[in-house]
């Protein structure tokens, strides 16, 4: 996991006619985690999508080194397939991460629903499945968009432990969430401070 780095320099983002934030800069080195807080619609998700390279910033640049893992509100799992087969597809795409998706699903408690089609899973179970994929992916830079949404209290703590462990072994985590996220050494920025 050495050598991963995320630097955001003087970033501004526009959605439609509105500038959501401007002049946003931060830098994360190996082992660091940052939580982006702010009310709904303040641009947290847009920031994550810009960092992931899915949106173009209005101005500014993103310097990202290391493979990226993204978890957002869309799990990208085939709805009609049993969860196990939907995860196996990503397992083949990712070609084996630090741990296999089978053991990752054990860690996140979805082994019991691996034969259930994704369309019958609850919000929380889908989130767990997305985290399973993230865990079994060789990603050093984690981008988590509202990772605690839909998770029960125990699983939310587990998610925090996963992030803590990921940073402990030298990964980077960027978390967009309006909920408190309890990880030691977690830095935080309030995105509304950068509103124009």
């Amino acid at each position, binding site marked *: 996991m050495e050598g991963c780095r995320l630097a955001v320099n003087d970033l501004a983002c526009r959605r439609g006619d509105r500038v959501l934030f401007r002049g946003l800069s931060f830098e994360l080195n190996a082992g660091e985690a940052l939580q982006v807080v702010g009310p709904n619609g303040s641009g947290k998700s847009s920031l994550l*999508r810009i960092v*992931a*390279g*899915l*949106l*173009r910033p209005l101005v500014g640049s993103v310097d990202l080194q290391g*493979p*990226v*893992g*993204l978890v*957002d509100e*869309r*799990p*990208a*799992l*085939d*709805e*009609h397939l049993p969860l196990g087969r939907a995860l196996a*597809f*990503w397992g*083949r*795409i*990712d*070609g084996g991460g630090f741990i296999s998706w089978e053991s990752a699903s054990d860690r996140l408690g979805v082994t019991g629903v691996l034969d259930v089609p994704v369309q019958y899973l609850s919000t929380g179970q889908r989130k767990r499945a997305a985290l399973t994929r993230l865990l079994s992916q060789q990603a050093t830079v984690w*981008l988590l968009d509202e990772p605690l949404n839909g998770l029960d209290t125990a699983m939310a703590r587990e998610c925090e432990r996963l992030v803590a462990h990921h940073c402990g072994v030298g990964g980077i985590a960027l978390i967009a969430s309006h909920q408190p996220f309890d990880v030691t050494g977690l830095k935080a920025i309030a995105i509304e401070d950068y509103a124009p």
Partner: protein
Amino acid sequence: MSAVGTLLRRDLAQMFGGGRRGGAVLPVLFFVATAMLFPFAVGPDPVLLAKAGGGIVWIAALLAAILPLDRLLAPDLEQGFFDQFAVRGIAEEAVVAVRLVAHWLSFGPPLMLAALPAAALLGLHGDTLRTVEWGLLGGTPGLAAIGLMIAALTVSLRAGAALAGLLLIPLAVPLLIFGAGALSTGGQSGLALTAAISLLLCAITPFAGGAAIRAAREG
């Protein structure tokens, strides 16, 4: 390379496996049904049917190409598949190219098979049937490519499905002119031109489709 194989397997399983994409069966049934309607509408005159039959098969193929358009790309974009591919460094162009192969495999060969019962219903045989089959072999990749390109361009539109059908018809006219035209001229030049247009369309589609998907993501 393994990623391409995995993508192709998923696409084919979805298209042939009765998945949410409507599968390969629906366009084929629609194709045969359209060909079946003509003798009822214009009467059972064998001379007339044999003269118009080849063109009817082509129109049926063109209309059948419209059916699967709204399921080709939109579900994957909505469910975030393209985002997950992008963060893994898998280009949209590659995904679209793989989907083009899978879409043609689920559309072209089944349609060529279905052209046999359709030809029987219209009383086509011999040289005419052979020209129709060669024409479909040359033309269906082009129809699949146009369809996929339109699906990518209309992927973020609310009324995309209806618009896709309207867009496909004029764009498919060159294929129809040369493909069905080969029936009346009897020459092979029409078939060659149909295949050439298909080749060109297949070459453009991954790039046009990839750019359209990235643009849809920005919107």
